[in-house]
């Protein structure tokens, strides 16, 4: 019994004397609950929808009013009223809007003349959950037009919602691929780069290079570059296998591959620099272990890889605005499912590059060159 209690006490004492691990053990479940609870199955809000109405008649106005009521009430939409159809559709293509709703100029005439009125809906179907929500709500919004103003004499009188999927269908497994790649990059950056520094420190062999003329930049950049090469290879392999398994079509060949490679490299650099800033002064692998769960939760789930960012509450959506993984997922989805070129994802690329530059600079500044 004495022996058993000694083992228990030894372990408890070691645990108690490691305040970071203790603090994280308490914080982790709360953060899990907050972030995971808010990242899945939440109500979608503020989905940007462009509306172009070429008809000024009362029925067309009524459709817009109904949509506005949804935007004001459950706030599922954020309506943007435009005049130009091309601008609206282009906005969906480059990710500014989730959908574009077009009311043609003969809408009212067709309603009153029982001439089979139509409304056009261009959907970004690469985000299946958002597209489906918009489709259902728009159908609901045009329903009363039919019930109240159009006598049901024959089938042709119903307002027809002509929805157009702008991109080839993305099935569930295909939609997971960007998330899988981001997860591979996250794990790669966690176990290379700064982690090797933590291990050297833990093993006490960091002195061997701290005693040499290597500068802080040499050490930080050197470890980041080595982590970059390992993680890029791992992520590219996982990506290739995922694409082969899920059968995502590659229609733009080399150009698309190049864009994807740029995103993978930049995301890896971004996360390696972030890890360096966080782990740069850590001296025990146990802290890395517990931080890995924490970082994965706060970076991966609010990235939109599993569930759309539009379903998050305001605070989590604000966090997604500075979460590099959210930009990486967005960029990967655009290139993979929308055939977007580098120009379309230039905003995401710029954010990732800026984030990397800031994190790497801070890492070098905060890295301690002494013991």
């Amino acid at each position, binding site marked *: 019994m004495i022996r058993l209690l000694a083992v228990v006490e030894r372990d408890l004492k070691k645990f108690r004397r490691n305040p970071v691990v203790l603090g994280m053990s308490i914080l982790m479940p709360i953060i899990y609950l907050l972030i995971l609870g808010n990242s899945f199955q939440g109500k979608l809000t503020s989905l940007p929808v462009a509306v172009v109405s070429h008809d000024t008649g009362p029925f067309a106005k009524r459709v817009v009013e109904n949509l506005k009521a949804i935007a004001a009430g459950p706030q599922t939409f954020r309506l943007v009223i435009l005049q130009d159809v091309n601008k609206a559709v282009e906005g969906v293509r480059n990710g500014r809007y989730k959908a574009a709703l077009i009311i043609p100029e003969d809408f009212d005439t067709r309603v009153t003349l029982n001439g089979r009125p139509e409304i056009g809906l261009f959907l970004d179907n690469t985000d299946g959950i958002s597209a489906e929500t918009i489709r259902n709500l728009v159908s609901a919004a045009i329903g009363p037009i039919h019930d109240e103003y159009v006598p049901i004499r024959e089938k042709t009188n119903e307002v027809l919602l002509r929805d157009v999927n702008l991109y080839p269908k993305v099935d569930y497994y295909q939609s997971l691929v960007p998330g899988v790649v981001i997860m591979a990059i996250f794990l790669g950056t966690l176990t290379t780069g700064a982690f090797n520094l933590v291990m050297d420190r833990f093993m006490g*062999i960091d*002195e061997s290079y701290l005693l040499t003329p290597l500068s802080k930049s040499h050490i930080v950049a050197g470890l980041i570059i080595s982590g970059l090469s390992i993680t890029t290879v791992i992520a590219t392999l996982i990506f290739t296998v995922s694409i082969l398994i899920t059968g995502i079509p590659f229609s733009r060949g080399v150009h698309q591959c190049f864009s994807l490679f740029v995103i993978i490299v930049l995301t890896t650099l971004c996360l390696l620099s972030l890890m360096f800033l966080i782990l740069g002064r850590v001296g025990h692998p146990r802290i890395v272990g517990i931080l890995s769960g924490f970082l994965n939760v706060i970076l991966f789930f609010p990235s939109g890889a599993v569930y759309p960012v539009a379903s998050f509450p305001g605070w989590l959506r604000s966090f997604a605005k500075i979460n590099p993984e959210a930009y990486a997922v967005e960029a990967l989805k655009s290139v993979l499912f929308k055939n977007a070129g580098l120009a379309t994802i230039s905003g995401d690329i710029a954010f990732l590059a800026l984030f990397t530059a800031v994190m790497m600079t801070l890492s070098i500044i905060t890295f301690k060159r*002494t013991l």
Partner: protein
Amino acid sequence: MPGQQQSTMQEQKAITVSEITKKFGNITAVDSVSFEVERGEFFGFLGPNGAGKTTLIRMLTTLLRPTSGHAVVSCCDVVKDPTEVRKHIGVVPQAMTSDLDLTAYENMDIYGRFYGIHAKERKERIEYLLDMVGLTARANDLVATYSGGMRRRLEIARVLVHRPELLFLDEPTIGLDPQSRRVVWSFLEKLIGGDSMTIFLTTHYMEEAEALCKRVAIIDTGKIIALGSPAELKSQIPGNDVITLAVEHPSEEIAAAIETLPFVHKVKSEEGSVRVSVDSGAKNLPSLIDEVRSAGGKVLSATVHEQSLEDVFIYYTGKSIREEEAKKVSFFVGAGIPQKFGR
């Protein structure tokens, strides 16, 4: 002109330390230490673990910032110009720092590249050094397969790749068996004979300091308590031999009786034995035994040896380095820096 003369004098010193202090919270690890080391000198710091040797060496090698005071190593200030200092020194830290996942050759090669040494010169230098430490046959084996002694030899060879002007060795033979320790000593002796390198060594083995160092500073609780060549240090304490008597029932009376003898300088009672500093130990041993007997004691055994640096340490501190060692729990973990402060 006198100013210029003084600066030339300073340039000739390999190390100039003035009133350097390092505090970790309330603990003063190094307390206002000052000393100088000449170029080409083999200089030793002797003291028990916890005396402040590693903290001092870490300040001199730019790993720790002093709380106060200054240190100039190879003409550069360790705080103002640490990078320049690092270019001129080679350091073998107390803990083994070679990469276990790399071979000996790879360890040395990467180290040489840290100093920007070109491939051809690096290869020649590494081959020469590996041969010198007798590791050529194992050069391409992973360091993980090495014994402690082999790894230590590799680490000494590694810091010589860039031909440092100044070599710091922090307890280079700690944890090694006597045979490996002798191998390291003979290797260090070769270094003294060869290059005009300055060597700064810390140790808690007095025989190591005595055998290798031209000058020795004895340090205890962060302060230098004596400094000079081993011979000078020993000449400062009275007597030239030490007789250790194992006595059946040692008592205060026996110690007092011995102290009255004319050839006795100092008596120190230890557990079951009495340590006596004397002149001409072998000649005076019979008289000493007689005196113990007449005081009612029984001598079980007796040894005579020459005064050593250990005796110098006892003379100044009243305790032996070995006693101090016994009090320490572990000297491998956190040497030179309390765990909660640095790491």
